[in-house]
């Protein structure tokens, strides 16, 4: 029977099917961090269980870490305790641990791919919903709860019903200043935050074929924001070139064998999806969100829709606009901006900083803007320095912070104050996500750069000169 890419990977990981219930689903690689793992370890210990395959789990500290002065002890005692527990649990159970200050430390979904932990055809889970990022490699990757973290630790399996299948095709090519982030925000604005609930998405079509690995990661990362458990893209030469030679990728004969398998990871021509959408890539413009969920996005040159134009209840819509201090029918361009955040597992990789730098180069940071530029990992941080990007940023009046999740969820001190407006390259504009009362507008690194240098929401296309386009 013809199969989709998703079927091929899923079916090869089913240990056992339960009649009228979920599949017992094998997990190849498991990522853990300090926030969603402590209770799982507590559970293990209270039941007297061990970790079945410690070499299949990787620990990094990211959610709760400071992004300045990482060499100093962590000031907040609760955060320090979580970091300490992660380290102790990792040591006790023989799990590889990249703690604060380790040269491989960084955001869990940045370090996984960077070190070759993420592979095509693998299953990857983590107690973080943006685990969907790793689907960019043709892996099945999704976020799990802490009870499931405990299951994976002790049995390398979770119990999951197989999701339905959706394919999203984007044809043609993208216009000037339009980035993978815009593609993702565009899709979510069309499907809404619950439009893909119950589905696993495959992204296909020319736009994704031409996209870099990092761009694909940005798109797959945001799959969860339309309710999908995950999203994936069939592996191709771009994928193989990216993973070759990384620390945890197979080597020598094992690589050749893996390649043989990986080349079979495509959706068969006549395979059927439960749902399919097709959009024209050239119709997408730089996007920005105006509300309090990622589905509330719009082309940056457009006006904020009226309640009648959107799905869902009027009361919920009004509550959302009220929180943002916006009104129906207003333009987004020209809205004041107080903070700019570039980072997170969505847009905290080297290409994101290259894009940001391409636009701020030769310009100056606006005085009214506080900018937090937070690399996704130490490896990204090192690249930023090696490539001379740091010099461009410094020249334009920006500072670089140290890696971590930072203002993406504002668990550390990087909180946007109440009522202030932030243009953020992260993934969630929920009420209070970036700090109590903070007002978030999600956008690409280019839109963030345009806001950072002008101090207001600005269409980056008006600032882009022809030669900087390629960098973006």
């Amino acid at each position, binding site marked *: 029977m013809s199969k989709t890419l998703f079927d091929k990977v899923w079916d090869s990981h089913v240990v056992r099917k339960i009649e009228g219930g979920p599949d017992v689903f094998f997990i190849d690689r498991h990522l853990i961090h300090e926030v969603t793992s402590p209770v799982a370890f507590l559970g293990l210990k209270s039941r007297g269980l061990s970790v079945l395959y410690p070499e299949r789990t990787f620990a990094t500290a990211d959610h709760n870490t400071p992004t300045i002065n990482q060499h100093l002890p962590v000031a907040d005692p609760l955060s320090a305790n979580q970091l300490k527990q992660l380290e102790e649990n990792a040591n006790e159970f023989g799990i590889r641990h990249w703690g604060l200050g380790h040269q491989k430390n960084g955001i869990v979904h940045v370090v996984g791919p960077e070190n070759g932990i993420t592979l095509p055809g693998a299953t990857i889970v983590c107690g973080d919903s943006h685990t969907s990022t790793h689907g960019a490699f043709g892996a099945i990757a999704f976020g799990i709860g802490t009870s499931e973290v405990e299951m994976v630790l002790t049995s*390398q399996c979770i119990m999951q019903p197989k999701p339905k299948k959706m394919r999203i095709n984007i044809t043609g090519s993208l216009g000037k200043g339009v980035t993978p982030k815009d593609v993702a925000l565009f899709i979510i604005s069309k499907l809404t935050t619950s439009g893909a609930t119950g589905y696993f998405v495959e992204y296909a079509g020319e736009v994704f074929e031409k996209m870099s690995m990092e761009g694909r990661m940005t798109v797959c990362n945001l799959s969860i924001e339309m309710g999908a458990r995950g999203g994936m893209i069939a592996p191709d030469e771009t994928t193989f070139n990216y993973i070759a030679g990384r620390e945890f990728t197979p080597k020598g004969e094992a690589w050749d064998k893996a390649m043989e398998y990986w080349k079979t990871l495509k959706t068969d021509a006549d395979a059927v999806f439960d749902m399919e959408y097709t959009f024209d890539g050239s119709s997408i413009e730089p996007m920005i969100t105006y509300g309090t969920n990622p589905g509330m996005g719009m082309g940056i040159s457009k006006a904020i829709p009226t309640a009648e134009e959107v799905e869902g209840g009027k009361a919920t819509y009004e509550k959302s606009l009220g929180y943002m201090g916006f009104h129906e029918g207003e333009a987004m361009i020209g809205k004041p901006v107080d903070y700019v955040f570039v980072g997170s597992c969505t847009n905290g990789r080297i290409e994101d900083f290259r894009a940001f730098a391409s636009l701020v180069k030769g310009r100056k940071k606006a005085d009214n803007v506080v900018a937090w530029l937070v690399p996704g990992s130490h490896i990204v941080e090192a690249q930023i320095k090696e490539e001379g990007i740091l010099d461009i940023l410094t020249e334009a009046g920006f500072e670089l912070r140290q890696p971590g999740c930072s203002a993406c969820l504002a668990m550390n001190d990087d909180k946007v104050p109440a009522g202030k407006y932030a243009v953020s390259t992260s993934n969630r504009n929920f009420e209070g996500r970036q700090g109590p009362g903070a007002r978030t507008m999600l956008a690409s690194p280019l839109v963030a750069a345009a806001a950072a240098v002008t101090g207001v929401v600005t269409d980056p296309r008006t600032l882009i000169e022809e030669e900087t386009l390629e960098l973006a």
Partner: protein
Amino acid sequence: MAYDKFTILTSTAVPLPIENVDTDQIIPARFLKATKREGFGDNLFRDWRYNSDNTPKADFVLNDPTYKGKILVGGKNFGSGSSREHAAWAVYDYGFRAVVSSFFADIFKGNCLNIGVLPVQVSPEFLQKIFDAVYADPNTELEINLPEQTITLLATGEKESFDINSYKKDNMQNGFDDIDYLQNIKGEIQEFATQRPF
């Protein structure tokens, strides 16, 4: 962790007719620093429930003594966003044993089932009926019958059935969890693992 058995729950309900309630609202990230699962109920819906000076917001339903009970009734797409199981823990720790909505986000729904909170998905029409009934009479009771998979407005007898897979249903009725199951098939899993290329 094994949890309380769930069979029939009869209770008044707390209405929260907001759509797309995300897990950042259920439990904001700054309260995720604890390393135990108890105690999150105090901060359930923290920023909707309290002002920044920690005084209760009078107009939020959890601060309104009119509405109480073990059933939380939410708007469409309840529990979207972050995978934090802390959201389900907070709902449980506050005292809810079931959440009713016309649509749940996947991960939240799974997390609830894993810790013994029953997610009950009803039609949008029935959801509206529940809201109307609770607003008309806050003492109105709902009965959630897991063995029969029904939810009933006791005052009128109007009922609807809901879905749950038989494996999870069995777990909830008996207070088992997935780890019990997985421990029993460890040999099969280890055999499977030897076949994995990476």
